[in-house]
């Protein structure tokens, strides 16, 4: 909250100054015909009003605190020559531009808008198309990326860039953006205290959101749909994931979220729907999963090993082909008071929880782990019979992995 206030104040400050500062109008028939000229002419805290039209420019360096406002989405066409806007000053606002044709390079990460070592910037209402990298924040602090639309045309991973990339940045808010058809929708590396909220990241080649070595971040109410491999969260600590939706990430190496070396995170109120794997967990400890919905996934949760002291409480597991896959016989994770649609027990004492424990790991899921081709026997009568006998006396599946108090009714 505090961070947001600071940000808001800075915005007000910026606005206050800009009222007194001059406005330079840029248009095809004006005195100032190009944005570069406008930037060169402007004094600190001036506003550049860019009228509708097409501007064939690239490498626009913004070296002083300016506000660039586009009227009716003026087009800045980079002509595939390189980077388009580079911000190297604090207090810069970019609003309402349509930027296309960012150059592709195998040696430099050209971006539509790059912010370098700056603070208090605001990038909003920008539309980016035909891009390499979209918005690239490099060693920045206290900025906001709000309500932008990034639509790429990525085909191969090796020659495409990310939609919004944060590198060594802190206290940034990424909110209400739409990112489609790029390599990674939103990419974070070494970035702490970031808030990612209400974004829609879909149809990306690799990940909807990719997280590396970034601590204390929150991502909330985002939608990740139909991405090549879902969302990957790796090597990070104290992350909060709240109320996100992960849908339709299908494929052999595809999942809702991949958690790898994540510690002390909180995963609450998310919905995982129709993914091949809802959550794939590897080497992650002390994570609280609660109030999540796992609906119609192939595997709701796949635990790959070295995961300790995780707790799964009050989640809904609805109509998944497999609720849980587990590849070891050791279990140090807690499953308690979840609702499992596959539970067949009864509740005679009417306390709302089933009287016999539920075993989320089926023998069949163990067999499929060993011989993947057997997946073709899913839901066959023979499998039901051997699953039943395993349920009665577990031999192959971890004995103590049970939900002792499965709920009888779905959690709303």
């Amino acid at each position: 909250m505090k961070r947001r206030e600071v940000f808001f104040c800075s915005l007000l400050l910026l606005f206050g100054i800009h009222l007194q500062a001059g406005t330079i109008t840029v248009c095809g028939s004006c005195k100032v015909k190009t944005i570069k000229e406008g930037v060169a002419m402007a004094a600190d805290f001036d506003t550049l009003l860019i009228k509708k039209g097409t501007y064939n420019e690239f490498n626009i360096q913004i070296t002083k605190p300016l506000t660039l406002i586009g009227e009716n989405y003026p087009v800045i066409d980079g002509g595939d020559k390189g980077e388009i806007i580079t911000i190297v000053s604090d207090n810069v606002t970019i609003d309402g531009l349509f930027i296309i044709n960012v150059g592709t390079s195998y040696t430099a990460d050209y971006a539509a808008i790059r912010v370098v070592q700056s603070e208090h910037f605001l990038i909003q209402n920008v539309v980016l198309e035909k891009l390499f990298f979209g918005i690239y924040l490099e060693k920045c602090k206290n900025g906001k990326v709000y309500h932008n639309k990034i639509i790429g045309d990525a085909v191969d991973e090796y020659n495409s860039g990310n939609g919004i990339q944060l590198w060594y940045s802190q206290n940034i808010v990424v909110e209400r953006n739409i990112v489609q058809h790029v390599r990674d929708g939103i990419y974070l590396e070494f970035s702490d205290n970031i808030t990612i909220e209400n974004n829609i990241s879909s149809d990306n080649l690799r990940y909807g959101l990719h997280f590396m070595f970034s601590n204390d971040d929150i991502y909330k109410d985002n939608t990740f749909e139909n991405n090549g491999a879902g969302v990957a969260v790796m090597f990070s600590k104290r992350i909060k994931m709240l109320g996100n939706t992960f849908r339709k990430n299908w494929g052999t190496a595809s999942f809702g979220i991949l958690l790898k070396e994540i510690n002390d995170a909180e995963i609450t109120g998310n919905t995982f729907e129709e993914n091949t794997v809802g959550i794939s967990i590897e080497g992650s400890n002390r994570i609280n999963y609660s109030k999540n919905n796992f609906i119609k996934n192939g595997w709701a949760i796949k635990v790959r090993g070295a995961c300790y002291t995780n707790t799964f409480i009050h989640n809904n597991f609805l109509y998944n082909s497999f609720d849980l896959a587990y590849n070891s016989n050791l279990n140090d994770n807690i499953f308690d008071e979840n609702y499992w649609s596959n539970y067949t027990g009864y509740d005679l004492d009417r306390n709302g929880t089933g009287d016999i424990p539920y075993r989320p790991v089926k023998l069949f899921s163990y067999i499929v782990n060993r011989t993947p081709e057997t997946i073709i026997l899913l839901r066959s009568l023979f499998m039901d019979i051997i699953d039943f006998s395993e349920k009665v006396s577990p031999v192959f599946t971890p004995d103590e992995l049970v939900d002792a108090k499965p709920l009888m009714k779905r959690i709303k």
Partner: protein
Amino acid sequence: MIKILKYSFYDLMRSRWSYVYFLFYLLLGFVLLFLNNELSKAVITLMNVIIVLVPLIGTIFGVMYYYNSKEFTELLLAQPIKRSSIFLGQYLGVAGSLTVSLVLGLGIPFALYGLFQSNAIWDFSLLLITGAFLTLIFTAVAFNIALSNENKIKGFGYAVLAWLFLAVIYDGLFLMSLIVFEEYPLDNLSLIATMFNPIDLSRTLILLKLDISALLGYTGAIFKQFFGTNLGLFMSIFMLCLWTVIPVWRLAYVAKRKDF
């Protein structure tokens, strides 16, 4: 043939067996929906019923009907009627009435519970189509078995055994072979093995709708092609048709040559 078909159909209607079967499905549909209160879960439960029960009932009914109407068949054989029309007429009468009972019995409760507004409608129609196919296939298999066995007890035994084999034992052997040969590439083998069992085939067809997300989790390219495109759907339906046509053809062929 149409006359005999009609006769068999009305005969079954009169004998009330079709009604019992119809009422059974009606009740099942209502109970399922009442207990689950959700269409998508009911569809999953229903799948298990269709895959196990429909073939069983088709088999038993087919054998029973054949032996029961044997004297009437012999009477008909004395008339100037083509043999193939007699047997095919009877077969279609039985299979038709069973299919109608199944489709109506399950369709009515689901329609009443708002199927048409739900997006489960495709899953459900696929379920009914496979159910109809299974009825046709297993009734034909039962007629074949009954035709080849004069002894009623033997015929019944073989018919039930055939069902048991296809519903349970086949999958067991299938699983064993997959595990034993796990070091070899098995994609092709497993898909081909599925084709040789109508119950597995119908199961695969339904899985394509219900569990596609899990099926795409496996890394084989052939699997991916089969399940990821419409190829799987068309292949399965084509094989089901083949499974229906071959026993019916054999029925007509054997009936023509059999010495009664």
